[in-house]
Protein backbone atom coordinates (compact mmCIF):
# COMPACT_ATOMS: atom_id res chain seq x y z
CA UNK A 1 0.00 0.00 0.00
CA UNK A 2 1.39 3.42 -0.91
CA UNK A 3 1.46 6.28 1.55
CA UNK A 4 -1.26 8.44 -0.03
CA UNK A 5 -3.66 5.50 -0.30
CA UNK A 6 -2.94 4.45 3.28
CA UNK A 7 -3.74 7.95 4.53
CA UNK A 8 -6.85 8.27 2.34
CA UNK A 9 -8.29 4.92 3.47
CA UNK A 10 -7.48 5.10 7.17
CA UNK A 11 -7.85 8.77 7.93
CA UNK A 12 -11.60 8.59 8.75
CA UNK A 13 -10.77 6.07 11.51
CA UNK A 14 -8.11 8.37 12.97
CA UNK A 15 -10.42 11.38 12.77
CA UNK A 16 -13.22 9.49 14.52
CA UNK A 17 -10.92 8.30 17.28
CA UNK A 18 -9.50 11.80 17.75
CA UNK A 19 -13.02 13.28 17.97
CA UNK A 20 -14.07 10.67 20.54
CA UNK A 21 -10.96 11.30 22.62
CA UNK A 22 -11.68 15.03 22.56
CA UNK A 23 -15.32 14.44 23.54
CA UNK A 24 -14.28 12.34 26.54
CA UNK A 25 -11.43 14.64 27.59
CA UNK A 26 -12.91 15.46 30.99
CA UNK A 27 -13.96 11.95 31.97
CA UNK A 28 -14.82 8.58 30.49
CA UNK A 29 -17.65 8.19 33.02
CA UNK A 30 -20.15 10.09 30.90
CA UNK A 31 -19.67 7.73 27.97
CA UNK A 32 -22.23 5.04 27.23
CA UNK A 33 -21.37 1.38 26.71
CA UNK A 34 -21.64 1.63 22.92
CA UNK A 35 -19.43 4.72 22.89
CA UNK A 36 -16.77 2.96 24.96
CA UNK A 37 -16.92 -0.16 22.83
CA UNK A 38 -16.55 1.91 19.68
CA UNK A 39 -13.70 3.84 21.24
CA UNK A 40 -11.90 0.64 22.22
CA UNK A 41 -12.30 -0.68 18.65
CA UNK A 42 -10.96 2.54 17.13
CA UNK A 43 -8.09 2.52 19.64
CA UNK A 44 -7.06 -0.95 18.49
CA UNK A 45 -7.27 0.12 14.84
CA UNK A 46 -5.16 3.20 15.56
CA UNK A 47 -2.58 1.06 17.36
CA UNK A 48 -2.29 -1.27 14.37
CA UNK A 49 -2.09 1.65 11.92
CA UNK A 50 0.57 3.20 14.13
CA UNK A 51 2.62 -0.01 13.99
CA UNK A 52 2.30 -0.12 10.21
CA UNK A 53 3.14 3.56 9.74
CA UNK A 54 6.11 3.33 12.12
CA UNK A 55 7.64 0.51 10.07
CA UNK A 56 6.61 1.52 6.50
CA UNK A 57 6.49 5.34 6.66
CA UNK A 58 8.72 6.40 9.57
CA UNK A 59 9.19 10.13 10.05
CA UNK A 60 6.11 11.12 8.06
CA UNK A 61 3.27 13.32 9.32
CA UNK A 62 0.88 10.37 9.34
CA UNK A 63 3.30 8.31 11.46
CA UNK A 64 3.68 11.28 13.83
CA UNK A 65 -0.06 11.76 14.10
CA UNK A 66 -0.65 8.06 14.73
CA UNK A 67 2.06 7.95 17.40
CA UNK A 68 0.45 10.89 19.20
CA UNK A 69 -3.01 9.29 18.92
CA UNK A 70 -1.73 5.90 20.11
CA UNK A 71 0.00 7.48 23.12
CA UNK A 72 -3.01 9.63 24.01
CA UNK A 73 -5.36 6.67 23.60
CA UNK A 74 -3.15 4.39 25.70
CA UNK A 75 -2.90 6.99 28.45
CA UNK A 76 -6.63 7.68 28.49
CA UNK A 77 -7.96 4.15 28.08
CA UNK A 78 -5.56 1.99 30.06
CA UNK A 79 -3.89 1.83 33.42
CA UNK A 80 -6.50 3.12 35.84
CA UNK A 81 -7.12 1.34 39.15
CA UNK A 82 -10.49 0.47 40.59
CA UNK A 83 -11.34 2.32 43.79
CA UNK A 84 -13.51 0.83 46.51
CA UNK A 85 -14.01 3.71 48.95
CA UNK A 86 -12.61 4.33 52.44
CA UNK A 87 -14.78 1.78 54.24
CA UNK A 88 -13.89 -0.98 51.78
CA UNK A 89 -10.22 -0.05 52.16
CA UNK A 90 -10.20 -0.39 55.96
CA UNK A 91 -12.48 -3.44 56.10
CA UNK A 92 -11.03 -5.47 53.22
CA UNK A 93 -8.00 -4.07 51.39
CA UNK A 94 -5.95 -3.15 54.47
CA UNK A 95 -6.57 -6.38 56.46
CA UNK A 96 -5.71 -8.47 53.39
CA UNK A 97 -2.44 -6.62 52.82
CA UNK A 98 -1.62 -6.68 56.55
CA UNK A 99 -2.19 -10.42 56.79
CA UNK A 100 -0.05 -11.00 53.69
CA UNK A 101 2.93 -9.35 55.36
CA UNK A 102 2.54 -11.06 58.75
CA UNK A 103 5.88 -12.81 58.28
CA UNK A 104 7.75 -9.51 57.91
CA UNK A 105 5.82 -8.06 60.86
CA UNK A 106 6.84 -11.07 62.96
CA UNK A 107 10.50 -10.56 62.04
CA UNK A 108 10.24 -6.85 62.87
CA UNK A 109 8.68 -7.68 66.25
CA UNK A 110 11.32 -10.30 67.05
CA UNK A 111 14.15 -7.91 66.18
CA UNK A 112 12.52 -5.17 68.20
CA UNK A 113 12.12 -7.37 71.29
CA UNK A 114 15.67 -8.64 70.96
CA UNK A 115 17.14 -5.14 70.85
CA UNK A 116 14.83 -4.01 73.66
CA UNK A 117 16.25 -6.71 75.92
CA UNK A 118 19.75 -5.84 74.75
CA UNK A 119 19.18 -2.15 75.52
CA UNK A 120 17.77 -3.02 78.94
CA UNK A 121 20.76 -5.21 79.75
CA UNK A 122 23.15 -2.54 78.50
CA UNK A 123 21.54 0.17 80.65
CA UNK A 124 21.59 -2.05 83.75
CA UNK A 125 25.23 -3.05 83.16
CA UNK A 126 26.38 0.50 82.41
CA UNK A 127 24.61 3.06 84.61
CA UNK A 128 26.38 5.98 82.90
CA UNK A 129 24.38 5.19 79.74
CA UNK A 130 21.42 7.19 81.05
CA UNK A 131 23.35 10.43 80.81
CA UNK A 132 24.27 9.70 77.19
CA UNK A 133 20.77 8.73 76.11
CA UNK A 134 18.59 11.11 78.07
CA UNK A 135 20.91 14.04 78.76
CA UNK A 136 21.80 15.68 82.09
CA UNK A 137 18.47 17.51 82.56
CA UNK A 138 16.34 14.37 82.26
CA UNK A 139 18.68 12.41 84.55
CA UNK A 140 18.55 15.21 87.12
CA UNK A 141 14.75 15.05 86.87
CA UNK A 142 14.84 11.30 87.51
CA UNK A 143 17.02 11.88 90.58
CA UNK A 144 14.40 14.33 91.83
CA UNK A 145 11.62 11.81 91.15
CA UNK A 146 9.91 13.07 88.04
CA UNK A 147 9.96 12.02 84.41
CA UNK A 148 11.12 14.26 81.54
CA UNK A 149 7.81 13.48 79.83
CA UNK A 150 6.01 15.85 82.22
CA UNK A 151 7.40 18.77 80.25
CA UNK A 152 5.29 17.63 77.32
CA UNK A 153 2.27 19.35 78.80
CA UNK A 154 3.78 21.74 81.32
CA UNK A 155 5.94 23.77 78.94
CA UNK A 156 3.68 23.98 75.88
CA UNK A 157 -0.11 23.73 75.31
CA UNK A 158 -1.38 20.21 74.55
CA UNK A 159 -2.38 21.13 71.00
CA UNK A 160 1.22 22.08 70.17
CA UNK A 161 2.58 18.85 71.61
CA UNK A 162 -0.06 16.78 69.82
CA UNK A 163 0.73 18.24 66.42
CA UNK A 164 4.49 17.91 66.97
CA UNK A 165 4.17 14.32 68.17
CA UNK A 166 1.80 13.37 65.35
CA UNK A 167 3.97 14.85 62.59
CA UNK A 168 7.12 13.36 64.13
CA UNK A 169 5.63 9.86 64.39
CA UNK A 170 4.19 10.11 60.90
CA UNK A 171 7.62 11.12 59.60
CA UNK A 172 9.22 8.11 61.33
CA UNK A 173 6.64 5.72 59.81
CA UNK A 174 6.93 7.28 56.35
CA UNK A 175 10.73 7.22 56.46
CA UNK A 176 10.77 3.60 57.67
CA UNK A 177 8.46 2.68 54.81
CA UNK A 178 10.17 4.62 52.04
CA UNK A 179 13.64 3.59 53.23
CA UNK A 180 12.70 0.02 52.35
CA UNK A 181 13.72 0.86 48.81
CA UNK A 182 17.36 0.89 50.02
CA UNK A 183 17.25 -2.91 50.35
CA UNK A 184 15.41 -2.63 53.67
CA UNK A 185 18.27 -0.93 55.52
CA UNK A 186 16.30 2.07 56.80
CA UNK A 187 13.35 0.10 58.26
CA UNK A 188 15.85 -2.25 59.87
CA UNK A 189 17.60 0.75 61.42
CA UNK A 190 14.29 2.16 62.69
CA UNK A 191 13.34 -1.17 64.29
CA UNK A 192 16.71 -1.71 65.94
CA UNK A 193 17.06 1.88 67.13
CA UNK A 194 13.57 1.98 68.65
CA UNK A 195 14.10 -1.33 70.43
CA UNK A 196 17.48 -0.26 71.77
CA UNK A 197 16.18 3.13 72.90
CA UNK A 198 13.10 1.71 74.61
CA UNK A 199 15.10 -0.99 76.39
CA UNK A 200 17.85 1.32 77.54
CA UNK A 201 15.42 4.03 78.68
CA UNK A 202 13.57 1.44 80.74
CA UNK A 203 16.90 0.27 82.13
CA UNK A 204 17.84 3.82 83.16
CA UNK A 205 14.45 4.47 84.79
CA UNK A 206 14.78 1.15 86.63
CA UNK A 207 17.91 2.43 88.34
CA UNK A 208 16.00 5.42 89.67
CA UNK A 209 12.91 3.33 90.56
CA UNK A 210 10.92 5.28 87.98
CA UNK A 211 10.16 2.42 85.56
CA UNK A 212 6.62 2.12 86.92
CA UNK A 213 6.01 5.82 86.24
CA UNK A 214 7.36 5.45 82.72
CA UNK A 215 5.10 2.45 82.14
CA UNK A 216 2.13 4.50 83.35
CA UNK A 217 3.05 7.20 80.88
CA UNK A 218 3.53 5.07 77.80
CA UNK A 219 0.83 2.45 78.29
CA UNK A 220 -2.04 4.52 76.90
CA UNK A 221 -0.35 5.39 73.62
CA UNK A 222 2.94 3.50 73.41
CA UNK A 223 1.60 0.04 72.69
CA UNK A 224 -0.18 1.00 69.49
CA UNK A 225 2.41 3.63 68.57
CA UNK A 226 5.17 1.04 68.60
CA UNK A 227 2.94 -1.45 66.78
CA UNK A 228 2.27 1.06 64.01
CA UNK A 229 5.94 1.96 63.64
CA UNK A 230 6.84 -1.74 63.51
CA UNK A 231 4.11 -2.51 60.97
CA UNK A 232 5.19 0.42 58.76
CA UNK A 233 8.81 -0.68 59.04
CA UNK A 234 7.77 -4.27 58.23
CA UNK A 235 6.09 -2.92 55.08
CA UNK A 236 9.42 -1.26 54.26
CA UNK A 237 11.18 -4.58 54.87
CA UNK A 238 8.79 -6.23 52.39
CA UNK A 239 9.86 -3.71 49.74
CA UNK A 240 13.50 -4.37 50.60
CA UNK A 241 12.95 -8.12 50.37
CA UNK A 242 11.40 -7.78 46.92
CA UNK A 243 14.51 -5.92 45.76
CA UNK A 244 17.02 -8.35 47.25
CA UNK A 245 15.42 -11.79 46.91
CA UNK A 246 15.33 -13.42 43.47
CA UNK A 247 12.10 -15.06 42.26
CA UNK A 248 10.81 -16.56 39.02
CA UNK A 249 9.02 -13.32 38.09
CA UNK A 250 10.76 -10.22 36.67
CA UNK A 251 12.17 -8.15 39.52
CA UNK A 252 10.45 -4.96 38.30
CA UNK A 253 7.02 -6.58 38.63
CA UNK A 254 7.83 -8.14 42.02
CA UNK A 255 9.03 -4.77 43.38
CA UNK A 256 5.95 -3.02 42.01
CA UNK A 257 3.56 -5.53 43.61
CA UNK A 258 5.44 -5.40 46.92
CA UNK A 259 5.30 -1.59 46.92
CA UNK A 260 1.55 -1.61 46.30
CA UNK A 261 0.93 -4.05 49.14
CA UNK A 262 3.25 -2.11 51.42
CA UNK A 263 1.50 1.16 50.56
CA UNK A 264 -1.86 -0.30 51.59
CA UNK A 265 -0.39 -1.34 54.94
CA UNK A 266 1.14 2.12 55.45
CA UNK A 267 -2.10 3.91 54.55
CA UNK A 268 -3.93 1.69 57.02
CA UNK A 269 -1.54 2.74 59.78
CA UNK A 270 -1.25 6.51 59.16
CA UNK A 271 -4.71 7.64 60.39
CA UNK A 272 -4.00 6.19 63.85
CA UNK A 273 -1.04 8.48 64.51
CA UNK A 274 -3.04 11.71 65.03
CA UNK A 275 -5.37 9.81 67.39
CA UNK A 276 -2.37 8.56 69.37
CA UNK A 277 -0.87 12.04 69.49
CA UNK A 278 -4.01 13.33 71.20
CA UNK A 279 -3.89 10.42 73.67
CA UNK A 280 -0.19 11.05 74.30
CA UNK A 281 -0.81 14.69 75.22
CA UNK A 282 -4.12 14.46 77.04
CA UNK A 283 -4.30 10.98 78.60
CA UNK A 284 -0.73 9.70 79.08
CA UNK A 285 0.75 12.56 81.15
CA UNK A 286 -2.40 13.22 83.20
CA UNK A 287 -1.82 12.78 86.95
CA UNK A 288 -5.58 12.72 87.59
CA UNK A 289 -6.34 9.68 85.43
CA UNK A 290 -5.81 6.32 87.17
CA UNK A 291 -3.38 3.73 85.83
CA UNK A 292 -6.23 1.29 85.12
CA UNK A 293 -7.93 3.79 82.81
CA UNK A 294 -4.71 4.50 80.93
CA UNK A 295 -4.07 0.77 80.55
CA UNK A 296 -7.63 0.26 79.33
CA UNK A 297 -7.25 3.02 76.73
CA UNK A 298 -3.95 1.55 75.54
CA UNK A 299 -5.22 -2.01 75.34
CA UNK A 300 -8.50 -0.94 73.72
CA UNK A 301 -6.67 0.99 70.98
CA UNK A 302 -4.29 -1.89 70.35
CA UNK A 303 -7.14 -4.42 70.29
CA UNK A 304 -9.16 -2.25 67.92
CA UNK A 305 -6.26 -1.98 65.48
CA UNK A 306 -5.42 -5.67 65.64
CA UNK A 307 -9.08 -6.70 65.37
CA UNK A 308 -9.35 -4.63 62.21
CA UNK A 309 -6.05 -5.81 60.76
CA UNK A 310 -6.56 -9.49 61.59
CA UNK A 311 -10.29 -9.74 60.84
CA UNK A 312 -11.14 -12.97 59.01
CA UNK A 313 -11.55 -12.47 55.28
CA UNK A 314 -13.20 -14.53 52.60
CA UNK A 315 -10.77 -16.44 50.40
CA UNK A 316 -9.46 -14.29 47.56
CA UNK A 317 -10.91 -15.14 44.17
CA UNK A 318 -8.41 -16.20 41.55
CA UNK A 319 -7.89 -13.43 39.02
Amino acid at each position, binding site marked *: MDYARFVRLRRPVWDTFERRLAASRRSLRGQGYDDLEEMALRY*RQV*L*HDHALAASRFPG*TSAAGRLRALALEGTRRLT*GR*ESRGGVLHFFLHTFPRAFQRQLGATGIALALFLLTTVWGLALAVARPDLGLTILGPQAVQGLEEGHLWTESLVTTVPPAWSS*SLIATNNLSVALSAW*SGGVLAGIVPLYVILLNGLMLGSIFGVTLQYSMAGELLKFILAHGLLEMTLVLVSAAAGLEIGRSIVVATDRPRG*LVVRDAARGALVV*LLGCLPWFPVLAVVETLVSPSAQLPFVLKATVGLALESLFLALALRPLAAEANP
Partner: protein
Amino acid sequence: MAAIRHESILGLDNIRLDLPVASVGSRSLAVFLDYLILAALAIGWVFLVVIALTPLLPNWVPVFLFVGIFLLDWGYFAGSEIATGGRTVGKMALGLRVVTAEGGSPGPSALLIRNLVRVLDLVFGVPLMAIDPLSRRLGDRLAGTLVVHDRGREKAPVLGRVPPGWGPRELAAVESFLARARALEDTAGAWAMADRILDRIRRDAPELLEGVDTRRDPVAALLQALQVEES
Protein backbone atom coordinates in the same frame (compact mmCIF):
# COMPACT_ATOMS: atom_id res chain seq x y z
CA MET B 1 16.50 22.50 21.31
CA ALA B 2 17.57 18.86 21.76
CA ALA B 3 15.43 16.22 20.05
CA ILE B 4 13.07 14.26 22.27
CA ARG B 5 14.30 10.74 22.92
CA HIS B 6 11.85 7.95 22.12
CA GLU B 7 12.03 4.60 23.88
CA SER B 8 10.01 1.63 22.68
CA ILE B 9 7.70 -0.40 24.88
CA LEU B 10 5.29 -3.18 23.96
CA GLY B 11 1.67 -2.12 24.32
CA LEU B 12 -1.64 -3.85 23.62
CA ASP B 13 -1.34 -6.84 21.21
CA ASN B 14 2.45 -6.53 21.61
CA ILE B 15 2.42 -3.48 19.37
CA ARG B 16 5.47 -1.27 19.74
CA LEU B 17 4.80 2.15 21.22
CA ASP B 18 7.47 4.83 21.13
CA LEU B 19 7.31 6.83 24.34
CA PRO B 20 8.83 10.34 24.28
CA VAL B 21 10.77 9.78 27.50
CA ALA B 22 11.70 12.90 29.48
CA SER B 23 15.41 13.07 30.17
CA VAL B 24 17.19 13.90 33.41
CA GLY B 25 17.64 17.56 32.34
CA SER B 26 13.98 18.41 31.78
CA ARG B 27 12.93 16.43 34.84
CA SER B 28 15.48 18.18 37.05
CA LEU B 29 14.30 21.55 35.79
CA ALA B 30 10.67 20.62 36.47
CA VAL B 31 11.45 19.50 40.01
CA PHE B 32 13.49 22.67 40.59
CA LEU B 33 10.43 24.74 39.59
CA ASP B 34 8.25 22.63 41.87
CA TYR B 35 10.55 23.15 44.85
CA LEU B 36 10.49 26.90 44.19
CA ILE B 37 6.68 26.76 44.22
CA LEU B 38 6.74 24.58 47.33
CA ALA B 39 8.97 27.11 49.10
CA ALA B 40 6.64 29.94 48.03
CA LEU B 41 3.61 27.97 49.28
CA ALA B 42 5.32 27.27 52.61
CA ILE B 43 6.25 30.93 53.08
CA GLY B 44 2.74 31.97 52.03
CA TRP B 45 1.25 29.50 54.51
CA VAL B 46 3.40 30.85 57.37
CA PHE B 47 2.34 34.43 56.59
CA LEU B 48 -1.31 33.46 56.23
CA VAL B 49 -1.42 31.54 59.49
CA VAL B 50 0.50 34.16 61.46
CA ILE B 51 -1.54 37.08 60.12
CA ALA B 52 -4.98 35.46 60.07
CA LEU B 53 -4.87 33.23 63.15
CA THR B 54 -2.78 35.18 65.67
CA PRO B 55 -5.59 37.59 66.62
CA LEU B 56 -8.26 34.86 66.68
CA LEU B 57 -6.59 31.66 67.98
CA PRO B 58 -3.06 32.46 69.12
CA ASN B 59 -2.55 29.05 70.80
CA TRP B 60 -3.31 27.22 67.55
CA VAL B 61 -0.81 29.08 65.35
CA PRO B 62 2.05 26.55 65.85
CA VAL B 63 -0.36 23.66 65.31
CA PHE B 64 -1.43 24.99 61.91
CA LEU B 65 2.19 25.74 61.06
CA PHE B 66 3.49 22.23 61.93
CA VAL B 67 0.64 20.41 60.26
CA GLY B 68 0.53 22.68 57.20
CA ILE B 69 4.26 22.43 56.52
CA PHE B 70 4.18 18.66 57.09
CA LEU B 71 1.31 18.24 54.62
CA LEU B 72 3.00 20.47 52.04
CA ASP B 73 6.28 18.61 52.44
CA TRP B 74 4.80 15.13 52.02
CA GLY B 75 1.70 15.98 50.01
CA TYR B 76 2.49 18.64 47.38
CA PHE B 77 3.89 16.34 44.70
CA ALA B 78 1.56 13.40 45.28
CA GLY B 79 -1.48 15.66 45.68
CA SER B 80 -0.74 17.62 42.49
CA GLU B 81 -0.13 14.49 40.45
CA ILE B 82 -3.26 12.73 41.71
CA ALA B 83 -5.40 15.82 41.08
CA THR B 84 -4.11 16.48 37.56
CA GLY B 85 -3.50 12.95 36.25
CA GLY B 86 0.28 12.84 36.64
CA ARG B 87 1.37 16.46 36.46
CA THR B 88 2.73 19.08 38.85
CA VAL B 89 3.11 22.78 38.08
CA GLY B 90 6.75 22.19 37.17
CA LYS B 91 5.82 19.32 34.86
CA MET B 92 3.07 21.40 33.24
CA ALA B 93 5.56 24.20 32.59
CA LEU B 94 7.90 21.77 30.82
CA GLY B 95 5.17 19.72 29.13
CA LEU B 96 5.83 16.53 31.11
CA ARG B 97 3.46 13.90 32.46
CA VAL B 98 3.72 10.72 34.55
CA VAL B 99 2.44 7.56 32.85
CA THR B 100 2.62 3.88 33.72
CA ALA B 101 5.41 1.74 32.28
CA GLU B 102 2.85 0.63 29.68
CA GLY B 103 2.02 4.22 28.72
CA GLY B 104 -1.30 4.23 30.61
CA SER B 105 -2.73 6.58 33.17
CA PRO B 106 -1.25 5.90 36.64
CA GLY B 107 -3.63 5.41 39.56
CA PRO B 108 -3.40 7.19 42.93
CA SER B 109 -1.40 4.38 44.55
CA ALA B 110 1.34 4.49 41.90
CA LEU B 111 1.53 8.27 42.22
CA LEU B 112 1.68 8.03 46.02
CA ILE B 113 4.41 5.40 45.92
CA ARG B 114 6.65 7.35 43.51
CA ASN B 115 6.39 10.45 45.69
CA LEU B 116 6.86 8.79 49.08
CA VAL B 117 10.46 7.95 48.19
CA ARG B 118 11.17 11.43 46.82
CA VAL B 119 13.45 12.26 49.77
CA LEU B 120 15.76 9.40 48.81
CA ASP B 121 15.60 10.42 45.16
CA LEU B 122 17.05 13.81 46.04
CA VAL B 123 20.27 11.82 46.59
CA PHE B 124 19.97 8.86 44.22
CA GLY B 125 17.52 10.16 41.60
CA VAL B 126 19.80 12.06 39.23
CA PRO B 127 22.51 9.38 38.83
CA LEU B 128 19.84 6.69 38.44
CA MET B 129 18.00 8.69 35.77
CA ALA B 130 21.26 9.42 33.97
CA ILE B 131 22.17 5.75 33.56
CA ASP B 132 18.68 4.42 32.79
CA PRO B 133 17.42 4.46 29.15
CA LEU B 134 13.92 5.19 30.49
CA SER B 135 15.24 7.88 32.92
CA ARG B 136 13.60 6.26 35.93
CA ARG B 137 14.41 7.33 39.47
CA LEU B 138 13.85 5.09 42.53
CA GLY B 139 10.21 6.17 42.85
CA ASP B 140 9.50 5.33 39.21
CA ARG B 141 11.02 1.88 39.56
CA LEU B 142 9.01 1.23 42.72
CA ALA B 143 5.73 2.49 41.28
CA GLY B 144 6.22 1.25 37.71
CA THR B 145 5.94 4.72 36.19
CA LEU B 146 7.73 6.86 33.60
CA VAL B 147 7.80 10.57 32.88
CA VAL B 148 7.13 11.47 29.24
CA HIS B 149 6.79 14.60 27.15
CA ASP B 150 3.14 15.48 26.67
CA ARG B 151 2.89 18.48 24.39
CA GLY B 152 -0.19 17.55 22.41
CA ARG B 153 -0.36 17.14 18.66
CA GLU B 154 0.28 19.91 16.14
CA LYS B 155 -1.42 19.81 12.75
CA ALA B 156 0.98 18.84 9.99
CA PRO B 157 0.74 18.64 6.18
CA VAL B 158 0.05 15.19 4.73
CA LEU B 159 0.70 14.35 1.09
CA GLY B 160 -2.43 13.31 -0.82
CA ARG B 161 -0.44 12.20 -3.91
CA VAL B 162 2.99 10.62 -3.99
CA PRO B 163 5.25 10.12 -7.03
CA PRO B 164 6.01 6.43 -7.60
CA GLY B 165 9.26 5.24 -6.09
CA TRP B 166 9.36 7.78 -3.28
CA GLY B 167 10.30 6.16 0.03
CA PRO B 168 9.69 7.30 3.61
CA ARG B 169 12.82 9.51 3.58
CA GLU B 170 11.53 11.59 0.67
CA LEU B 171 8.01 11.71 2.13
CA ALA B 172 9.26 12.83 5.53
CA ALA B 173 11.60 15.42 4.00
CA VAL B 174 8.89 16.99 1.81
CA GLU B 175 6.27 17.01 4.60
CA SER B 176 8.78 18.48 7.01
CA PHE B 177 9.69 21.20 4.47
CA LEU B 178 6.05 22.03 3.76
CA ALA B 179 5.30 22.27 7.48
CA ARG B 180 7.89 25.03 7.78
CA ALA B 181 7.92 26.60 4.31
CA ARG B 182 5.40 29.37 5.02
CA ALA B 183 7.10 30.33 8.26
CA LEU B 184 10.59 30.62 6.75
CA GLU B 185 11.90 34.20 6.63
CA ASP B 186 14.15 33.33 3.72
CA THR B 187 11.47 33.19 1.00
CA ALA B 188 14.03 32.87 -1.78
CA GLY B 189 15.59 29.87 -0.02
CA ALA B 190 12.16 28.27 0.47
CA TRP B 191 11.33 28.81 -3.21
CA ALA B 192 14.67 27.35 -4.27
CA MET B 193 14.02 24.25 -2.18
CA ALA B 194 10.47 23.95 -3.57
CA ASP B 195 11.88 24.26 -7.10
CA ARG B 196 14.26 21.38 -6.43
CA ILE B 197 11.39 19.21 -5.21
CA LEU B 198 9.31 20.19 -8.23
CA ASP B 199 12.21 19.17 -10.49
CA ARG B 200 12.27 15.81 -8.79
CA ILE B 201 8.50 15.41 -9.33
CA ARG B 202 8.93 16.48 -12.97
CA ARG B 203 11.45 13.65 -13.35
CA ASP B 204 9.56 10.93 -11.39
CA ALA B 205 5.89 11.71 -12.14
CA PRO B 206 5.35 14.61 -14.59
CA GLU B 207 1.60 13.86 -14.73
CA LEU B 208 1.27 15.27 -11.19
CA LEU B 209 2.24 18.71 -12.48
CA GLU B 210 -0.38 18.87 -15.22
CA GLY B 211 -2.38 22.08 -14.82
CA VAL B 212 -0.09 23.37 -12.07
CA ASP B 213 1.54 26.78 -12.52
CA THR B 214 5.06 26.24 -11.21
CA ARG B 215 6.44 29.67 -12.23
CA ARG B 216 4.64 32.05 -9.81
CA ASP B 217 4.86 30.44 -6.35
CA PRO B 218 6.76 27.12 -6.21
CA VAL B 219 5.59 26.37 -2.67
CA ALA B 220 1.93 26.81 -3.67
CA ALA B 221 2.61 24.72 -6.77
CA LEU B 222 4.06 21.97 -4.62
CA LEU B 223 1.01 22.01 -2.31
CA GLN B 224 -1.26 21.78 -5.35
CA ALA B 225 0.72 19.07 -7.15
CA LEU B 226 0.91 16.78 -4.13
CA GLN B 227 -2.66 17.63 -2.97
CA VAL B 228 -1.40 18.45 0.50
CA GLU B 229 -3.91 18.58 3.37
CA GLU B 230 -3.54 19.46 7.00
CA SER B 231 -3.99 16.48 9.29
